[in-house]
C-alpha cells in the first residue's frame, strides 16, 4: 500500500485542480455564511498540509502545529495594530511566517541534531503548544490574555495603485482561494523535487541515507522549519479573516485536532491532508453546534479507528480503489509494461 504512493500519488494534481475549480464556482451558487466560513476551513487545510508534509514525507509527527499557527495569528494581530496602514497585513504575514519558521528551526536544530526519537519529538512539540498557550494567557498586556485580540481584515496594498480592501467576504474568499492552491501546488512541487525525494529516503531508511552522505538532521530541520513557517503563515491569514485571536488557538485541543485531520485525510497525500483539514473542521464546526461533546467523543473514536485500521486515511482508501481500477485497465490494455507491473504487484 505504502509503495503505491511512496514518491507521491499519481493523478492527485488533476483531482486537486477539479476541486479548486469547484470551489471557485461556489459563490455563484450560494452566498452568505458558507462564503464567510469556507476560507477559514481552507486555512485549517493549509495548517493540516504543514503537518502532512512532515508526517508523510519525513515521518515526523508534530503536536505543536497549533503553536506555530497561533504565533502567526498573534503576529498578524500585533502587526495590524502597529499603525502601518495598508501594509500592516503584509507585515503580519511576514511576521507570522518568519516567527513560526524561526521557532521551528531553533527547536528542530536542537532536537534533530541530538538524534531525538520521534516519540520524544511529539512530547516536546506538545509541550511547546501548552507553553505558547500559557504565554498567550499570561502576557495579557500584549496578547489580551483570555479575552484575546481583535484583528481587522487586511487590505491588499498595491503601492501607487492604492489598495484593495478585503473586508467583503467575497473578496477575501477569492483572495484565500488564490493563496491556498498556490501553496498546494508549491508544496506538491517541493515534495516531488530533490528535496522531497531526500525526505522520502529519510522516511524509508534513515541509516541508509546517512551512509550515503546525507546530513539527515539538516534535512529534518529544514522540513520542520518550512512546516512551522507554513503554519505561521496560515495562522496570520486566519487571524485577519476570522477577526479574532485567542489563546485556545495554541492549545492542546487544537493541536490535537490538526493531527486528527491529517490522520483521517491521509498522511501520505498533501491533498488528503488539505481535504482532511477542510472537511473535518467543517464537520466539527457543524456538528459541535448541534452536540459539542458527543462530536468530540466521536472524533476520538475515529482517530483510534484510523490509527488502528487505516494508516493511510481516506486518501489511502481512494488511492487503492483508483489503483485497482487502473490496474484492471492496464491488464485489459495488454501493454507489456502494464502486464509486468500487474504481475509484480
Amino acid at each position, binding site marked *: 500500500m505504502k509503495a503505491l504512493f511512496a514518491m507521491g500519488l499519481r493523478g492527485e494534481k488533476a483531482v486537486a485542480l477539479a476541486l479548486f475549480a469547484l470551489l471557485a464556482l461556489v459563490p455563484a451558487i450560494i452566498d452568505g455564511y458558507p462564503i464567510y466560513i469556507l476560507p477559514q476551513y481552507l486555512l485549517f487545510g493549509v495548517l493540516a498540509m504543514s503537518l502532512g508534509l512532515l508526517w508523510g514525507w519525513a515521518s515526523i509527527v508534530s503536536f505543536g502545529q497549533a503553536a506555530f499557527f497561533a504565533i502567526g495569528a498573534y503576529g498578524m494581530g500585533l502587526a495590524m495594530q502597529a499603525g502601518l496602514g495598508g501594509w500592516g497585513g503584509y507585515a503580519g504575514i511576514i511576521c507570522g511566517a518568519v516567527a513560526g519558521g524561526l521557532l521551528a528551526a531553533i*527547536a528542530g536544530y536542537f*532536537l534533530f541534531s541530538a*538524534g531525538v526519537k520521534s516519540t520524544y519529538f511529539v512530547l516536546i512539540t506538545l509541550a511547546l503548544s501548552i507553553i505558547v498557550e*500559557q504565554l498567550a494567557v*499570561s502576557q495579557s498586556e500584549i496578547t489580551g490574555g483570555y479575552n484575546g485580540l481583535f484583528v481587522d481584515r487586511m487590505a491588499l496594498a498595491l503601492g501607487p495603485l492604492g489598495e484593495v480592501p478585503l473586508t467583503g467576504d467575497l473578496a477575501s474568499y477569492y483572495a484565500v482561494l488564490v493563496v491556498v492552491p498556490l501553496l498546494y501546488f508549491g508544496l506538491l512541487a517541493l515534495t516531488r523535487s530533490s528535496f522531497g525525494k531526500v525526505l522520502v529516503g529519510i522516511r524509508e531508511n534513515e541509516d541508509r541515507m546517512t551512509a550515503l552522505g546525507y546530513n539527515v538532521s539538516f534535512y529534518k530541520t529544514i522540513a520542520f522549519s518550512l512546516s512551522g513557517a507554513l503554519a505561521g503563515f496560515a495562522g496570520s491569514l486566519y487571524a485577519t479573516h476570522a477577526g479574532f485571536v485567542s489563546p485556545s488557538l495554541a492549545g*492542546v485541543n487544537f493541536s490535537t485536532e490538526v493531527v486528527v485531520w491529517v490522520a483521517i485525510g491521509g498522511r501520505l497525500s498533501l491533498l488528503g491532508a488539505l481535504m482532511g483539514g477542510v472537511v473535518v473542521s467543517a464537520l466539527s464546526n457543524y456538528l459541535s453546534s448541534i452536540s459539542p461533546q458527543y462530536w*468530540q*467523543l466521536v472524533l476520538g473514536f475515529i*482517530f483510534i479507528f484510523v490509527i*488502528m485500521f487505516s494508516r493511510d486515511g481516506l486518501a489511502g482508501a481512494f488511492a487503492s480503489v483508483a489503483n485497482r481500477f487502473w490496474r484492471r485497465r492496464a491488464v485489459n490494455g495488454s501493454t507489456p509494461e502494464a502486464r509486468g507491473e500487474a504481475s509484480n504487484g
Partner: protein
Amino acid sequence: MQIAISVGIDAALITFSLALAAFGLAIIYGLVGVINLGHGAMLTLGAYLSWYAVESGAPFFAAVLFAAVGVGLIGVVFEHLVIRHFYHRPFDTLLLTWGFFLISTEVIKIVFGTSFRNVPSPFPSAIHTSFYDFPAYKTFVACVTIVLLLATAFVLLKTSIGIKIRALIQNREMAGLLGLNIAATYKMVFGFGCAMAGLAGALLAPMLSIDPYIGNVFLIRSFFVVIVGGIGQILGGTLLGSFFIGGSETILALVSSQVVAQVAVFFIAILILRFRPQGLLGEK
C-alpha cells in the same frame, strides 16, 4: 537561613508530589515501552473518581482506593482492546493512547461537567515545628510516595514476580522460554501503571481544583521527569527527574513568575535532551 529551609522543604514536597504524578508513566514506559499519552487523562479520571466517591459519602481513603482500582481496570480494558495489538509499533501506541486521552476527556466532560470540583483535604491543618510549619496533607502525600517507590523497588528487585518482569523486559524470547506469560505480564504492568496514575490523581485532588484538563500540565511535567531522569530508571530516575523539574520550577517561580519558570524548565529539558538524550541516569 529560615527562608532557605522553607524553600528546601517546599522543593522536597513538590518533588515527591511530582514523582507521584510521574510514577505510573515511568512504570509503563520503562517496563513495556509504551509512551502513555493518556497518562494525564488517567490522572484526571482518578481525581474525578475520588471526588465522586467522596461526594457519595465514602471516606477519603476508600475513595482513593476506588479511584486507583477504577482507573487500573479501565487501563486493562483499553490495553486488551487496543494497545496489546501494537506493542511492536511503539509510535502507534503513542497515538492510540492520545486517542484514549481524547475520548476520556470528553467522557469526563459529559459525565461530570466542566465546572471546578473540590475534594476536601483529610488533613487540612499544618504540623507546627520550631522552624517550619509542615502542610500536613502535602507531607502525607510525600510519605505515601516514598512508601510506594520503596515498595515497588522491593517487588521489582527482590520478589520472583519482579525478577520475572525484569527478565521479560531484557529478553522477550528468553522470558517466553522460561514459561512466562508475556501477554498477561504486559497487561498486568500496563494496568498497574494506569492504577498508579489514578491513585496519583486521587491523592493530588485535594491540592487542586479539579477540571477536565488538570491532567494536561501533569502529563507534560511527568514526561519531562521521565526524560530528564532517564528511561527505565523507574525509581532513581523518577526521583531525580522530579527533583530537577519540580525543584527548578519552584526556585525559578520564586524569582520570576510561574509561567516564566515553566518556559525556562521547558528549555532546560530540551537542553538536557540535546546533550544527554538518555537522561541524567540513563545508560547509552
